[in-house]
């Protein structure tokens, strides 16, 4: 047992965060202000997500942490270690075995179930921020459902690029009411947000928590003549051969060789263990 209180935060702070989470779940997509604490990591490294996870974890939970889909990158490793030390909870890399999954910028490929919680790290929770810098004004726009401005952004995309070029942090409307920033997940993941698991979003620096309850309607904004498309690289995974997963492009050498691999490392590994193989699968193994 460590000398920290369970999951680092004191019990009063966790209560405060839980109240914000419950309010967020009661009003899907609404950004609930909360008294974000200083965490032993820099802003931008997931302080919001960590606080939400800390308030959500119980000693019986199994935690999985991913960063851009990967379990083995710096951010994921350090947050996983953090909770191993301060909460002594079991950790896993397998999506199906985890009860709480903290994620940065991806939704796992494997379908989540009702007994799981997905915690997102959010840098900027306000979807209207880059168009309307005044917080007083954006709050009013949410309150009065004045969301025309969000379409101005999409309009600008089409007029400049011929298509909606927004590829991540693609704005969604939750349960027909609040427009929400789904955090910088690729728009490929947007359709997955109507899921069985609870989705919690924590923004530490901006001091906001919001949530999407299970089976909530999440609609990606679009135009009638330019409908939403969940896009991905037009390849299959070079390691596991998956056609349906979101891919990272990796430059291999100076000669322009490249490979595409699943960004979800657990999904890729489990497929390779099941015997699937892609273009470069044999070499890598």
């Amino acid at each position, binding site marked *: 047992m460590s000398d920290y209180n369970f999951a680092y935060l004191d019990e009063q702070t966790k209560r405060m965060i839980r109240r914000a989470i419950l309010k967020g779940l009661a009003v899907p997509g609404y950004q609930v202000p909360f008294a974000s604490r200083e965490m032993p990591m820099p802003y931008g490294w997931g302080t919001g997500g960590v606080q939400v996870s800390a308030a959500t974890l119980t000693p019986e939970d199994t935690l999985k942490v991913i960063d851009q889909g990967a379990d083995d990158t710096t951010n994921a490793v350090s947050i996983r270690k953090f909770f191993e030390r301060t909460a002594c909870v079991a950790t896993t890399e397998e999506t199906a075995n985890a009860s709480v999954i903290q994620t940065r910028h991806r939704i796992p490929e494997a379908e989540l179930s009702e007994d799981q919680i997905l915690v997102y790290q959010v840098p900027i929770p306000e979807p209207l921020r880059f168009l309307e810098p005044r917080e007083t004004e954006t709050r009013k726009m949410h309150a009065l459902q*004045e969301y*025309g401005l969000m379409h101005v952004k999409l*309009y*600008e995309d089409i*007029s400049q690029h011929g298509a909606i070029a927004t590829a991540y942090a693609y704005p969604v409307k939750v349960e027909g009411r609040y427009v929400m920033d789904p955090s910088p997940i690729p728009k490929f993941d947007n359709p997955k947000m109507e899921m069985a698991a609870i989705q919690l979003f924590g923004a530490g620096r901006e001091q906001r928590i919001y949530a999407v309850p299970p089976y909530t309607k999440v609609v990606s904004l679009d*135009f*009638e*003549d330019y409908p939403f498309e969940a896009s991905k690289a037009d390849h299959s995974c070079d390691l596991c051969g998956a056609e349906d997963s979101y891919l990272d492009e990796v430059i291999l050498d100076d000669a322009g060789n490249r490979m595409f691999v699943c960004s979800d490392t657990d999904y890729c590994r489990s497929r390779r263990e099941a015997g699937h193989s892609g273009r470069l699968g044999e070499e890598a193994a």
Partner: protein
Amino acid sequence: MTPLLQVKNVAKMYGARIGCTEVNFDLYPGEVMGIVGESGSGKSTLLNSLAGHLTPDRGEVIFDTRADGPVDTVTMSEPQRRMLSRTDWAFVHQHARDGLRMSVSAGGNIGERLMAVGDRHYGSIRERAADWLGRVEIADSRIDDRPSAFSGGMQQRLQIARNLVTGPRLVFMDEPTGGLDVSVQARLLDLLRGLVREMGLSAIIVTHDLAVVRLLADRLMVMKDGHVVESGLTDQVLDDPQHGYTQLLVSSVLQV
């Protein structure tokens, strides 16, 4: 005929100081009302109070809405007032930068109001934006340029297009020609006059430029120290000023 806008005893105070007080007038559909006066006379305060940017301390501003007939806009709920201000009302700022989104293209600026009232078809939004650019004499090819690449006169015309695209019935203008050189002013006035006549707009124009009201306004109100000192038909007030201040104002204009 029901007046489009009835202003009854409107007053706005800044603490103990008077912004404007005891303002009464009716504005009928298709009518253009000019408000002139020197700096600090309360004309912008009055305009902002009428347009809902400031809350008047006293009085009523009754607008003849399409759906419910005459309604007091001071006491109506904020969502309703904001809805009005992006459908039936338009507000042209003195500085185009205050009324435009400088980081959004000309087409996006014009389309914003359309999207705000629920238009979700890119093609039709763009078509109407192009149409309105044409009406305010900006080349189609500039539709994807940002207003920061436009001249002052073009920015002002773009602001007007952005405001008129939803077919408002009442336009508030705060010194629409301020800061523009005379030839650009003349073209802008010409354009405004054409649009007002063609669309049957009602307008309230605040300015200190008597030439502007002479050209555009049917009726004129002269303000000084927050009070209306004289009002009447534009030509009548300008050609036969009764109040001492109006006489001073009219005689201050250089005859070239």
